[in-house]
């Protein structure tokens, strides 16, 4: 049996979304910027997608800008905001547990002369709002704090941080790549928000950025002036339509699917409980996300054993070079024990998982943990 439990890495495009995208590929294939009817048809689909997505996160259509993915959305938000408003420098607040799409931008900005404060998570993977408050300086101009962490699945206190940011007039960006489609998101809590289509059953190479209309922002790429000048390049109409379709399917099935996820989660957690010496990494996570370590078992080794039995999970501790095992900077920031950091595997459920897949996974997990532990005895 093939069981995919790595939905935080990417998702299978919903069948209905695939069919819709194909239709646009071959029927409404025009260039949305063309004046003729082929162009008009494409433009209508594109703008209708924008409206649906805007509605999904409770903002205005003109506040949605399509991008090629989460990485680009993060880059435009942070770099574009600073170029437009604080080209001379300033202090930024982010966290130690952001995705590289934010962290690497911060490193780049540090080289340009910006200062960056990195907030530390609790050992449960949580950024404390009080820490955020303490980190605010006179020249703090922007905060970028993710909605849900991609390794642990921990939901961050966006509402509390939002309040503090507003009190201090700090523009607040959130990388919601792991939150979209999994939580009900009210984007008006923040000023800018990034999302990536392939994380919610839409095609790869799609994403969007919400920018509150009061925020001035510059492009990081130049060209034909598409997306009101913020993101040039021929509009990815099928991609946008795919994202909107996927979000609508999720909206429609949300309660039902959350219940299903919860049931599967409970089943997996019960299995894990049967195994001595484990540690669940992160508290208050999204339902689909379980990050766990088993003492004495390297995360890569467990993931490989599961993979050889048809199950895809992921690990952040793969050894990728002769320089030694690379460890998860997220779990390290949480100051967890060495065995927990090197042992972590990430199991992320999807709306398309079936109960028999979960049952198979549970059985294999028990067997492989036992087998790998026996190799040491």
């Amino acid at each position, binding site marked *: 049996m093939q069981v995919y439990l790595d939905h935080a890495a990417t998702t299978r495009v919903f069948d209905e979304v695939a069919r819709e995208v194909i239709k646009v590929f071959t029927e409404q294939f025009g260039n949305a910027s063309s004046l003729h009817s082929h162009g008009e048809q494409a433009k209508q689909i594109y703008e209708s997608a924008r409206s649906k997505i805007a509605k999904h996160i409770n903002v205005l259509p003109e506040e949605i800008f399509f991008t090629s993915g989460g990485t680009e959305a993060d880059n435009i938000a942070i770099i574009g905001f600073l170029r437009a408003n604080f080209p001379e420098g300033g202090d930024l607040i982010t966290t130690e547990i952001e995705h590289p799409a934010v962290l690497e931008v911060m490193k780049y900005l540090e080289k340009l002369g910006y200062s960056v404060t990195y907030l530390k998570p609790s050992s449960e993977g949580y950024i404390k709002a009080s820490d955020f408050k303490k980190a605010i300086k006179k020249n703090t101009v922007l905060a970028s704090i993710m909605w849900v962490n991609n390794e642990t699945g921990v939901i961050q206190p966006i509402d509390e941080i939002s309040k503090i940011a507003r009190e201090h007039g700090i523009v607040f960006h959130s990388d919601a790549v792991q939150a979209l489609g999994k939580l009900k998101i009210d984007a008006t809590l923040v000023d800018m928000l990034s999302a990536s289509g392939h994380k919610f059953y839409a095609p790869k190479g799609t994403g969007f950025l919400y920018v509150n209309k009061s925020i001035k922002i510059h492009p990081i790429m130049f060209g034909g002036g598409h997306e009101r000048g913020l993101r040039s390049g021929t509009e990815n109409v099928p991609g946008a339509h795919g994202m909107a379709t996927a979000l609508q399917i999720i909206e429609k099935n949300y309660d039902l699917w959350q219940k299903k996820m919860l049931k599967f989660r409970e089943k997996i957690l019960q299995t894990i409980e049967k195994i001595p010496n484990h540690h669940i990494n992160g508290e208050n996570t999204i339902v689909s996300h379980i990050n766990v370590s088993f003492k004495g078992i390297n995360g890569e080794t467990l993931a490989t*054993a599961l993979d050889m039995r048809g199950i895809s999970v992921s690990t952040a501790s793969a*050894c990728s070079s*002769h320089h030694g095992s690379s460890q998860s900077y997220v779990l390290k920031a949480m100051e967890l024990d060495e065995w927990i950091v090197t042992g972590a595997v990430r199991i992320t459920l999807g709306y398309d998982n079936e109960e028999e897949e979960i049952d198979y996974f549970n059985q294999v997990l028990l067997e492989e943990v036992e087998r790998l532990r026996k190799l040491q005895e």
Partner: protein
Amino acid sequence: MTYSEKFKQLFMYPAHANQIDYTHTAEVVYPEHGDRVRIFVKLENFLIKDISFKAIGCPRVIAASEALCRLVNGKNINIALEINEEHIRQEMDFHDKEFKCIMAPVEALKKALSKLENE
């Protein structure tokens, strides 16, 4: 990372991770990788009558341990001491030279047998 069928057999179905009556043993640790291998050898007249391992670490170190055991079990120690990286890679059908930890079991075997040489 894709592994070969040979690698998969070694990693998933190691036949030498059992307990044996050993005459010699040694452990090697690659601390930066979190890899730890102990090799147990039952020697009789310079013949490896039986061999087994304990391993904790990455998939490669586990597969390499089993590969070594398969290669040297029943062999004369002179042959055992000539096992090199290339032999192990061949037996594992694993050719990514980046990973050096596949030599941990070989080192452990040599360490175990070095006691013999000193005897």
